[in-house]
């Protein structure tokens, strides 16, 4: 009942409504267009803001608080793509490149889902809307999932020299990728400038955040809408995979997060990260390493199925689960 309330609250939040507006606009073939440079700039802004806000709060966090969640995140970045790969190869009957390619998507992070998860928390009443300041660093660590998946694929295929050099390039690109640099760079700057330095730039990086995210989600909805049309093409297996796996990953992420000592809110965000499927960094990396893999499959499932699923019902579910499990553990 309470859960239903939370799901309803999420469904009727400006974020999800904007996302749905975007989907609808695409389905009725309306010509609402948010130009690509704007979208690129907004994603830089969102990631940098999240880093900054985290950094400002970070003061006082000890390394030991961070250590366990970081290890858990690394474990997830190894385990999730691996087990996705196995499922896709086994029951999924995909060949190696496709299995590794899809695993790379589900093993890494969708910035939109991540940002929406943070915004989900910030929407809560005061006192219930805080989470660990180092969360952006966890999101950066989770990007490693891409590398793990590609590595598995390469290894199973017996890669040639030239393909390995391509993999080397992908590893470098992932480590210096946009999200990683902006999240960690923002975090560091936030730590250095502190509350006081942040105050003067807060109108942009704090007050506007949610409004900009709503704007961004109109475009994300249009993107997802375009993929939705290809829904049928991915086949029943991927339709189920794209809906069920994120739910499982979300549950696992939340659980491990709580066990690693994260607050319920922090564990919720870790769950959202784990559940999310990348749709920017992973496609580029997979295309470069496994050109044989079919982009229709991994793009349609991550953008057309998993992204809407996570935004619309995933987030409130992970949140409720985090609260429930935390209460249950507290009672133990």
């Amino acid at each position: 009942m309470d859960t239903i309330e939370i799901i309803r609250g999420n469904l009727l939040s400006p974020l999800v409504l904007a996302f749905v507006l975007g989907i609808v606009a695409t389905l009725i073939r309306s010509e609402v267009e948010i130009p690509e440079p704007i979208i690129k700039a907004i994603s830089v802004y969102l990631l940098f803001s999240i880093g900054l806000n985290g950094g400002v709060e970070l003061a006082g966090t000890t390394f030991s608080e961070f250590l366990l969640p970081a290890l858990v995140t690394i474990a997830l970045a190894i385990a999730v793509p691996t087990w996705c790969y196995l499922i896709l190869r086994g029951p999924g009957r995909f060949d190696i490149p496709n299995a590794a390619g899809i695993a790379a998507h589900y093993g890494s992070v969708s910035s939109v889902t991540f940002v929406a998860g943070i915004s989900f928390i910030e929407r809560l009443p005061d006192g219930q809307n805080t989470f660990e300041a180092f969360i952006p660093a966890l999101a950066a660590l989770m990007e490693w999932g891409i590398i793990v998946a590609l590595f598995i694929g390469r290894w199973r295929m017996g890669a040639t020299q030239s393909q390995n050099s391509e993999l080397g390039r992908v590893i470098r690109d992932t480590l210096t990728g946009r999200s990683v640099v902006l999240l960690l760079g923002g975090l560091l700057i936030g730590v250095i400038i502190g509350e006081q330095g942040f105050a003067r730039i807060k109108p942009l990086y704090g007050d506007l955040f949610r409004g900009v995210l709503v704007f961004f989600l109109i475009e994300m909805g249009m993107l997802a809408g375009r993929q939705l049309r290809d829904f049928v093409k991915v086949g029943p297996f991927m339709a189920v995979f794209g809906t069920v796996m994120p739910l499982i990953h979300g549950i696992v992420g939340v659980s491990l997060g709580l066990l690693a000592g994260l607050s319920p809110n922090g564990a919720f965000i870790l769950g959202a990260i784990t559940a999310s499927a990348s749709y920017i960094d992973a496609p580029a990396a997979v295309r470069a390493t496994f050109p044989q893999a079919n982009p229709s499959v991994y793009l349609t499932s991550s953008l057309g199925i998993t992204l809407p699923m996570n935004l619309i019902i995933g987030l409130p579910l992970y949140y409720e689960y985090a609260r429930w499990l935390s209460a249950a553990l507290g009672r133990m």
Partner: protein
Amino acid sequence: MKLTTVRLVTIIAEPVLKDRLLHEIHACGAQGYTISEVHGEGTRGIHAGQWQGGGNVKIETLVSSDVADRIMNAMANHYFPNYAVIAYISDVQVMRGDKFV
């Protein structure tokens, strides 16, 4: 005015290939290139750049006949099978042909 004929090789490819193709044509002997952002559709379905606005890159390079052949061969061997990419050659006339060979 003396004009000489050189080859204009045009490659249209998904953006993920950009750096590799530039490297490739350079290795084949091209002295320069010009890139533009285009988008398009062909016989292959969606590719990874497509959701980013269907973008492709168009690479044009003026080269000697030999280099053009080398580029076309490299395209056929390394890129045609797996990527959304096309390439074509035409003859154009330039003034200082030695700049491009």
